[in-house]
């Protein structure tokens, strides 16, 4: 981990970069998996489980690569099961409780839209192993974006109830969106090395996609200038993350010497 006093190495920066990407996906995938067996319609149960499988799959691949970069003999499970909430660097956006179906969709849309622009640029990274992964995952991200966007339209421009519900979800989620574009010395390193992307480059594109979609869905775009949360990338989280990790990690940590793969 980087500190103000210690110079960040390229290896540390790349590891942190990969973990941030992976943590977002694991935590959101874990949240979405709570829908399995409880979806609003059988067909949609399958769809959310698919998105969840993709996200956890992406996280697994990223953790595997992180373990290689770290080179301390860890495996992917080490990062998922043996770190505490202060070490998780996922966005607060991803850890918030699943809420109703509208909340889940609104969050997925905001996140997938960001991932889409981010991965479109990560394709150009100067690392074949990394871009191999990125290209593969990008195809699935495009589908997540399409699926969640279509649902935003349906809920926004559906019944009065659905309109109000998803509007409320967007209002609630708004203050967690600025963090999507958070950048620090880790990103600077990665951009310099041709491994990372400058998210400020596509902020306007992302905003436009979000605004156009909400407008088409007859929804009101919340105020961009409101107070925005921060701190995720430095391990500052809502209380929800701790409970999620307690549940996710308990078995593995109770019997750390056992084989569970």
């Amino acid at each position, binding site marked *: 981990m980087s500190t103000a006093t210690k110079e960040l190495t390229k290896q540390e920066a790349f590891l942190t970069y990969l973990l941030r990407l992976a943590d977002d996906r694991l935590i959101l995938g874990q949240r979405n998996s*709570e829908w399995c*067996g409880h979806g609003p319609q059988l067909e949609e149960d399958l769809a959310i489980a698919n998105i969840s499988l993709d996200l956890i799959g992406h996280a697994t691949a990223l953790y595997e690569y992180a373990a290689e970069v770290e080179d301390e003999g860890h495996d992917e499970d080490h990062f998922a099961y043996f770190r505490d909430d202060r070490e998780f660097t996922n966005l607060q956006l991803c850890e918030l409780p699943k809420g109703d179906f509208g909340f889940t969709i609104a969050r997925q849309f905001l996140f997938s839209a960001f991932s889409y622009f981010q991965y479109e640029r990560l394709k150009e990274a100067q690392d074949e192993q990394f871009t191999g992964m990125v290209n593969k995952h990008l195809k699935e991200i495009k589908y997540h974006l399409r699926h969640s966007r279509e649902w935003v339209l349906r809920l926004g421009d559906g019944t009065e109830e659905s309109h109000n519900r998803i509007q409320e979800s967007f209002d609630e989620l708004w203050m967690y969106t600025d963090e999507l574009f958070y950048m620090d010395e880790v990103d600077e390193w990665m951009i310099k090395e041709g491994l990372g992307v400058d998210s400020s480059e596509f902020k306007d594109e992302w905003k436009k996609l979000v605004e156009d979609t909400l407008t088409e869905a007859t929804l009101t775009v919340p105020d961009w200038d409101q107070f925005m949360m921060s701190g995720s990338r430095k391990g500052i989280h809502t209380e929800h993350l701790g409970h999620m990790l307690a549940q996710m990690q308990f*078995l593995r940590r109770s019997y750390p010497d056992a084989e569970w793969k």
Partner: protein
Amino acid sequence: MENQEKLDEFQARIDAGEKIEPKDWMPERYRQQLIRMMSQHAHSEIVGMLPEGNWIERAPSLKRKLVLLAKVQDEAGHGLYLYSATETLGIDRSELVDQYLYGNAKYSSIFNYPTMTYADICAIGWLVDGAAIVNQTMLARSSYGPYSRANVRICKEESFHKKQGYEMLAKMASGTPEQQKMAQDAVNRWWWPSLMMFGPHDSDSPNSAELIKWQVKLKTNDELRQHFVDRMVMEAEAIDVTLPDPDLTYNEETGHWDFGEIPWDEFWNVVKGNGIMNRDRMKARRSAHENGEWVREAAVEYARKKKLREEKAS
């Protein structure tokens, strides 16, 4: 009209091994029996998501989490195939769902048992999916075309379900002392319920003879159960777990394994709704359905508005 001639003709088609398709003539009783049996099968797949879904969030490795989530998702798919097949008999899915959420339709009692430890997930994969495969392999040759095809697809997808459970159970059974204890405990609890999955003895199964006559089923409950026991004895031995039945003995004469008396009182008790998890399962399914109503309505309303807009534009 169901005159004898038509019934005979129908029976002759069945006996010749022909498949019956949705628009073909069929006795009303055949249709009703299929609706009952197929929808029960579908409900079971859906309720069956809950006991296993209980461990998705707590799965002990990322690999096992992905495997379990994919498996439970498949069950939703299987429920969907089976509902679709049932709908070819002229009944809407919403009506079928209504019958089990708010009416008397049944689902397999096995899903009213709790999954207390992660080893239960492995035992379910091995025993419960093992039993389901025995049953579904037979149903893949059922006389009703859509039901047979749905089961072909299900069998193809389900082969990994049993394997993943058996593989992990084997790992636990040869793992740390705590894992071994968990694995054996899970087998102890799931063995008898899995035998009950094949239903009552043939002598107590009023529907069996008729279903076999119409080749909806090709084997009796007891035949399938015996087939399952023979196989499981062998598989239990291979991974060093003990099946909790002191009466299990190989019968030289029949070439099969004899087993002890199944606790039928418990079976009927769970069927009547008194299993540990009966009430929770129904509550969970009803609340998913009721909480989803506004979502389903929104999609219908959006489709209506969109159509109107398109009509106006053209």
